[in-house]
Each structure stands twice: as C-alpha cells, then as structure tokens.
C-alpha cells in the first residue's frame, strides 16, 4: 500500500495504486491488511469490506513446517470487486474450535455490487452479478456465471462452465462455447452482449476494465 515517494502532491484520486497495479479505493473498509494478498491489477472499489482480521489461528494440519498460515483472503490478478461487497472468510467448528479458513479468489473474477461472499474458493474467469450471497465453503470452479440475487448455499460446488441463479441457487444452464471471448461471440444465457462495446466481456479478460478504473 506504499505510494512511491517521488510522486509529490499527486491529486488525491479515488484509488490508491500499489506497485503491482492494484487499485484500492480510499473509501473501502479493509481490516487485517496483513492477511490479505492481492495478485496485481486488482480493483477494490468503494465500500468494499475485506475481513482479513478473521484469519486462521492455527497451522493447518497438513503443513510440515511450524509456521502458521495466516493469509485469510488471497485475490488473483485483474479481479474487480465492486462497490458495497463484503468478502469474509468462512468459519466452522473443527476439532472443537471455531476456525477460519483461508479463501482464494482467482484471476479475472468480477464481483458485482452489494455481494456477500464467504466462499472457500472462486476460480478464474467467474462472473458474479449484483446482490449475490455466497454462503460459507461454497466452491466455484472456472467460467461460472452467477445471476443477480442468487443465494449460493453453504458447501455448494459449482462445476465449471455453469450458469447458476435462484434462491437457493441451482445450475440453470451452461455458459456455452465462446463465453468470455471478446468480439461478437457470446454464448449461453444472456452471455456478455453488453460487455462487447466496453472492451471487456463477462468471464473474459478484465484487463481493459481494470485499466478504465481511475
């Protein structure tokens, strides 16, 4: 989060840009920054909550080393988290103690406004619409589109290439061939025709979108 000292009297914009190109809004609410990793060129918009303070408190049993894993939220490259979303790592009782688990969000993931996310993992090229609730320990594979107002139940595993929606969410279709590919090609249910003219496509490369955020 350190800004280069050479830049003096830079106009205070909405976003703080890190060395690796992450853009973090000044109005975002991030707790436990030490436990959050951003992959680079990731956008955190205003009013986004990242609960890094809710981190794992003991070493995972599988690790051989004695150093405890404390990363609670890791986010990949070119991921966009829109306004008002809350990212909170999932917790459950394990061996008689409440334990928070580290959550992973992949590359080129778009998270729409006002979502509540507690998934254990979200793979790359996932498009999440607005007002989506993802309950703890849901696992979302690659190339998934989640429709607005969906409620993903706890522990749900969403296979890659599916479209999910509803309360509770069900797989309602497939994204089809060419999803996430730029240009005129768009497949699946409502697949990305609105993205075309803006230079980015749902489930596609979000680099253009990230670049446009100022």
């Amino acid at each position: 989060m350190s800004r280069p000292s050479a830049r003096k009297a830079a106009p205070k914009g909405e976003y703080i840009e890190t060395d690796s190109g992450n853009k973090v809004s000044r109005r975002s609410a991030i707790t436990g920054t030490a436990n959050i990793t951003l992959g680079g060129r990731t956008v955190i918009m205003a009013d986004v909550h990242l609960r890094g303070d809710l981190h794992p408190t003991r070493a995972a049993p599988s690790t051989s080393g004695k150093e405890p894993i404390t990363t609670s939220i890791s986010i990949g490259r070119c991921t966009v988290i829109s306004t008002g979303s809350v990212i909170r790592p999932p917790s459950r009782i394990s061996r008689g103690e409440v334990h928070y688990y580290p959550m992973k969000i992949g590359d080129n993931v778009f998270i729409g406004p006002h979502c509540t996310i507690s998934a254990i993992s979200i793979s790359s090229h996932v498009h999440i619409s607005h007002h989506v609730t993802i309950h703890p320990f849901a696992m979302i594979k690659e190339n998934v589109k989640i429709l607005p107002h969906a409620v993903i139940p706890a522990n749900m595993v969403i296979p890659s290439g599916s479209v999910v929606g509803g309360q509770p969410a069900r797989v309602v279709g497939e994204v089809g061939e060419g999803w996430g590919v730029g240009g005129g090609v768009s497949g699946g249910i409502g697949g990305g025709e609105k993205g075309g003219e803006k230079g980015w496509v749902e489930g596609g490369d979000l680099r253009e979108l990230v670049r446009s955020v100022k």
Partner: protein
Amino acid sequence: MSTQPAPAARPSSDRRTSTLQKRTSTALPKPSSIVLDPSVLIAQHAQLTGTHPITIGPGAVLHPHSKISSVLAPVVLGEGVVIYERARIGVGVGDAKAGDANRRTSVLPDRGSGGSLARGEGTVLGRNVVVETNCVVEASEIGEGSVVEAACTLGRGCVIGRYCIISAASVIPANTRLDDFTVVYSGNEKRINQTMKDRKEVRQSYKTKHAKQLDMFRKLIPNQLAKWA
C-alpha cells in the same frame, strides 16, 4: 467518524461578526443513554446513533460498520448478540422504498394491518441472535437464538420467534409474526425446523457453537468499547 476540533480553536459566539445562524452539525445525535455491559465487543467503525436509549447485553459483538440506530425508538440487544458488517438495527434505518422496488422479486405476502407500529415501540433482539451482513432490521422483537442471514430486510413491527432462521435475501414485511423454529427460505417459503424444536440437545449444541464463535471474535477483533462507554 468526525471528531470535533478543540473548542479553543473556534471564535466564541460573541465575537462572531456574521449574524447568520451557525450551521448545526448534520451528524446524528449521540444516544442519550448507552448502557453497555463491560464484556461487549464493539469493533472500530461500529456506529451507535439516535436519541433514544441503546442497551447492549453481555458478550454481544458489533462488527465494523455495523449500525445501531435509536433515532425513532429504543434498541435493546440481548446477551451474545452478533451484528455483522453493515447490518443496520433499529426502527427507521431502512428507507421505506428499498423494501420492494428494486431489491428482489419474491416477498412474503403482507399480513396487512396498516403500517403503524402495532406493538410497543423499539427493537429487542433476544439472546444469541445473529444478524448478518447488509441486513436491515426494524423488527420489534427477535427471539433467542434466531439467525437473520445476509441481506435480509425485516419490516417494522415484526415479531420473530425463538430459533428462527431467516435465510439470505428474504424480505419480511412489516408486522409479520413468525412462530418459534420457523425457517424462511427461498424468498417466501416457510417451514418449521422440527429437529431444533423436538431436540433439546440440538439447541444446546447450537448454543455451544455460538459461544465458541463469540470467543473467537474476542480473539480476533480489537475492542473499541472504551470509545462508547
């Protein structure tokens, strides 16, 4: 959180040359009385506002950016209540039109009986109630052990029983009464959680789990109780 500058820095009122009325603060007034148990955990950026009294019982946890508002009526949070990020508690915290217009499609049928408060005013959350992220709770009462999941809206004057689960993104219209052990899901479906109702040990383990969760919060979240006490 705007803090007032030191009063010495301001010109005193008799030295003011302008006859214009001094601009009054637009910040919400601090509650007239906040009764906090010393074991309450209030995270940084949690907000308590309003003019009526706010009472918070022992062991309650307020997450960052949660908001308790007693602008129109008093608020009482019971023992071990957990309020997550950006949840809003208290009568008058939700804007009236947000409930139906743009939020979502399926809503429980309104039980009618007008919009005015049917019961005694105020919001009372029972013991071990959990209110998750982005909820708007204007209900008058929520019973012990109930869970209000993410992005729910509970209208004014609702009475929610014990051990209810209001699943995510549900909208409960004003003056609804839910029996004990009700589960509201899928927007407008309801059922009774028979396991929870019949088996005392399930409720007991639920309680134990909640206590452990509270302990964990106490370990992880820095307490800013001193600011409010």
